[in-house]
Each structure stands twice: as C-alpha cells, then as structure tokens.
C-alpha cells in the first residue's frame, strides 16, 4: 500500500523539530492577541476557550504524536473539575492547591486507565477509552460528592497564593492565561524532546522502535498520563472559572468535542488545537439558541474535515506557507 502523507492520523505534516522562526512568530502573535483580547471580548468567554484550548492541546499530544485516538478524554477534564471543585468548596483549599489536587486526580486516573488501554491500538484503543469514560460517567452520576445531576455548584474562586483575588474577573483571566501558556509550552517541550522523538518513532513503526530497545509500552503510558494530566489542568481551571463541576464535562459528547476541536484545527500541529478550540467554542456560542443545530453543525464539520480537510485549519495554512506551525 502506498504511503500517502495522511496515511496515519497526525502525519499530515512533515515533522520539523525544535524551534523555528515561524513558530516563534506565531507564538508571539498568539500571546499578544490573548493579552489584548479581554479588553475587547467578554473575558469569561475567552477563559472558556482557553481551558478548551489547553484540553485540546493535551489531547493532541496523544493523537498527533503517538497516533492514539482517545475517545474518552472527557474523563480527565471532568474528574479534575470534580476534584478541584470538591477541594475548594468542601475542604476549603486555596485555588492553587485545588487545581493541583484536581490535576492529580486526573493524572492518577490517567495512569490507571492508560495502563489498561495502551495494550491495544487503533480502533480498539478508541473503544476502550470510550468505555472507561462511560464507566467514570456513571460513577459521577451516582457518587455522593459529585452532586449527581446538579454537579458541584458555587465553587469559591478564592485568593491565589494569598495575594491575587480571583473574584476579580480580569485577574482571573490573566491567571488562566498564564496556566494555559505554561501548559502549552510544557506540551511543546514534551513533543520536541528526545522523549517526543521516541513517541513519533513508535507511532511510525512500533516493532522497529521496540527492536531498537525502546520500551514502547512505557513510553506510551507516560504520554497517556501526561496527556491526562494536562487535560486535568484544563478541567480543574475550568471548574474554578465557572465555579461549577458538572456531568457535562465527563459525558462522552465532551470527548467527541475535543476530537472535533483538534481535527478542525489540525491534528499533530502545535497551534491547531488552540485555533480549533476557539472556533468551536465561538460556533457553539452563536448556535446555542438553536438547540439541535449545534449537534448537526458539529457533525457536518466532522464529515467535511475527514473527507476533504484532513490537515485542519493550521495544517492547511502551514501547507500553503510551507511552514510547520
């Protein structure tokens, strides 16, 4: 069978390693835009988009660079949200510790689910992660501390490190932006480290990577746990922003949404998930009144992306500019 460029998910672009001028420029454009944005756009909307952008970046770490499609990533977003919300509201944790605790919950789940799921590949992997996600969903529905259908409401935002009052929307925005940027850069660093190179080698040819002496399973497990951790960081932050942790974030539709964001933005691109997340969140914002149309539009985007637009927005842009973004 001929090796077309997108034979494997996430190989739409040639892998360019390290820091390139185009990426540095793109990063500064993105950061500047995000610093200026809250003075023009409703900050809570931006914070929502930022949380989803980090979530999509975490998801992209797995699909774009290891080639594993997780259809249950909502578990990590949602469980971290519950963890952070419970810690902040019931235990009275300050926000920084609540976020750390929530992220820790997601990381732990990531290790457990990952250990079971990475034994399989491709479609099996997608199915298995989906099934685990459904398991966690039903657990969240029935467990006492999650508040069932109501979720955990009116979570206190508190004071970050005892200094920054997060009830102030703009302060909160810049904290969320900082969390996003740290997460984004850490994921970038992970992908472009020797560790990331091994991940790509495993994606391209697992038996060969193994024969070269790499323990593929351990690498995949670590990648899965890292992805879960960053998704958790996004979920914990989101819970504090909206002061709410609910079933929506653990439901499989959320897992589908993060796939959509990443696919639309560009699988395996650095900036794609961010762009995809902003586009999808904006779309949902405008379509929210139209009820069932949200689902229909999401479905159409899926179909169009898969059939004719597999590189995604950023991938296509990079292809035109002949740059890796």
């Amino acid at each position, binding site marked *: 069978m001929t090796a077309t460029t997108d034979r494997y998910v996430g190989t739409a672009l040639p892998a360019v390693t390290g820091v390139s001028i185009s990426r540095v420029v793109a990063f500064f454009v993105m950061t500047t835009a995000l610093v200026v944005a809250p003075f023009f756009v409703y900050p809570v909307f931006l914070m929502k988009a930022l949380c989803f952008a980090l979530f999509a970046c975490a998801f992209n770490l797995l699909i774009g660079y290891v080639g594993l499609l997780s259809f249950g990533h909502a578990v990590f977003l949602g469980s971290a949200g519950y963890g952070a919300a419970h810690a902040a509201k019931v235990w009275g944790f300050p926000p920084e510790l609540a976020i750390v605790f929530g992220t820790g919950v997601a990381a732990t789940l990531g290790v457990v689910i990952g250990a079971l799921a990475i*034994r399989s590949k*491709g479609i*099996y992997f*997608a*199915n298995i992660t989906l*099934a685990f996600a459904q398991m966690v969903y039903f657990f969240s529905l029935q467990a006492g501390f999650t508040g069932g259908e109501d979720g955990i409401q009116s979570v206190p935002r508190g004071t970050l490190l005892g200094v920054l009052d997060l009830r102030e929307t703009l302060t909160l925005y810049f904290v969320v932006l900082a969390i996003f940027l740290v997460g984004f850069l850490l994921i970038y660093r992970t992908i472009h480290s020797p560790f990331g190179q091994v991940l790509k080698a495993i994606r391209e040819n697992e038996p060969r990577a193994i024969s070269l002496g790499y323990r593929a399973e351990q690498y995949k497990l670590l990648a899965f746990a890292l992805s879960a951790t960053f998704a958790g960081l996004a979920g914990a932050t989101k819970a504090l922003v909206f002061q709410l942790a609910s079933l929506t974030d653990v439901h499989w539709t959320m897992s589908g949404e993060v796939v959509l964001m990443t696919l639309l933005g560009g699988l395996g691109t650095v900036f794609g998930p961010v762009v995809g997340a902003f586009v999808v969140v904006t779309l949902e914002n405008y379509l929210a009144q139209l009820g069932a149309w949200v689902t229909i539009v999401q479905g159409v985007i899926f*179909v169009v992306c*898969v059939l004719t637009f597999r590189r995604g927005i950023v991938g296509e842009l990079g292809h035109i500019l002949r740059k890796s973004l």
Partner: protein
Amino acid sequence: MTIFGVATQALFGQLLIGLINGSFYAMLSLGLSVIFGLLNIINFTHGAQYMMGAFAAYLILKWAGLGYWSALLIAPVAVGLTGMVLERTTLKRLYQLDHLYGLLLTFGFALIIQGLFRHQYGASGLPYPMPRELAGGQNLGFMFLPNYRAWVIVFSLAICLTTWYVIERTRLGAYLRAATENPALVQAFGINVPRMITLTYGFGVGLAGLAGVLAAPIYQVNPLMGADLIIVVFAVVVIGGLGSIMGSIVTGFGLGVVEAFTKVFYPEASNTVIFVIMALVLLVRPTGLFGRAS
C-alpha cells in the same frame, strides 16, 4: 420462594429483561462485527441507524398506514439502503487511510442524523403500538411472560444464528471470510470485492435497523435511543472480540443477563458492570474472549 434472599418472581423478571437487552446487544454487536470484519471500521453511526429503524417503523405506520409486520420487512431494507449510499459516497474514500478516519466520519454522521431527528421530532419519545397478534402474555406459573418480549428474544436469536450460519457455513460466507483475510487475492479470483463491501455494510446497518423495529414497541421511538446504547454495545464488542461472529452473539446475550442480575443483587453497579467486565477481560485477554490475536 426465594433464591439468595430474592423472590424468584423478581429474579425471573430480571432474567427476562436481561434476555431482552441481550437480544439488542447481540443484534447490534453482530452488525458491528460483520462490518468491522470486512471494512475494518467501527461503525459509530450504528446507534443512529438503530434509531432510524425505529423511526422508519413509526413513519411507515404514520404515512403509509402499514403496521408492524410490514415495517419488520421494509424498515431494515430502507435503513440498509441508506447505509449503502453512505458507504458508496463517503466511507469508500477512506479505505486507504488510517481506520480512525472511518471512526471519525461515522461519528460525524451519527451527530448529524441524531441532530436532524431531534430537530424534527423533539427529544421526547413517540409511542409505537404493539402488534395485535402479540398482545397479552402467558402465565408460566412462576412468572408472567408477555408474548411480545418472548417474540423479540426468539426472533433475534433466530436472526443471529442465521447470520452465523450464512457467514460460517455457506459459499457466500466463505467469500466474505476470504475477503476479510485478503481482499486483493479474492478480487483477483474475479469476485467484485467493492460491491461485496457495500452489501456487507448495508447488511450490518440493516441489522441495526431491524433491532430498531423490534425495540419500537418496547422502548418508545426516540431520536437519542441509540446514542448511549451504542457505547454499551462497543464494550460488548470489545469483550466478545472484534470481528468474531459467535463471540458477539454469546457475549451479547450473556452480558444482558449479567447486567440484569447485577440490578437485582447490587443495583448501584448495574450501569457499570459491563465496563468493569470489559476492564477485567482486557487484563486477561486483550483481544477479547473470542477474538484472535491480530
């Protein structure tokens, strides 16, 4: 009379519910398995196509005035045909790519179909009458058995076993199995493999539609009736082993019963028991109970 402190009446009642759910698990996972065997695609649209089967029955009654028995014949064919159109126009173009694209495409179609039906018919269920011939039930002494439920179990078992027989024991099935192993070679022998793929997809989708018609009088006709069910069926398929025909049938019925008994003895776990079993099976046999090592 009681067994383990549970009244036998309740126990047999749950067994019946388990067998009913198992019938749907078996028919749906069978369709998924047949499709996966030849196309290597997990058909995420399967739940939506099951829903379409139920809606087809509802619309056939509403528009044409034809009842259950006609629907049982027409609806699966109609749903199967829509599946074939889908395969010819879109899925076909993805066979050279990573199989995950097939999953994403069918997921997109599931969203579109469910969204359209929800837009048109709302999210609440529409009632579908039970066929008059199967109203009422039998008093078996230890429990009351509604005729329609008995019919669903017997009929779906018959469909499953027929499918198994055709695939494993006939010449047509031999072609199908050969094409699963090596499509290029089978094509070289003069068999039209692309057409076979289309028909197989249509058949698998038709099975989902048939399950939808069977479900219509029991559960109501609802745009989202297949959305959560399909995830359970995915777990059933993973437990049985993807692509295994007999595996789908046995695990489908078996897990339906296990789930029902869990509801009696430990109700809190009844929603998750199938997923727990899946995790355990994966630990011991990553390819599923009846699956072959890939």
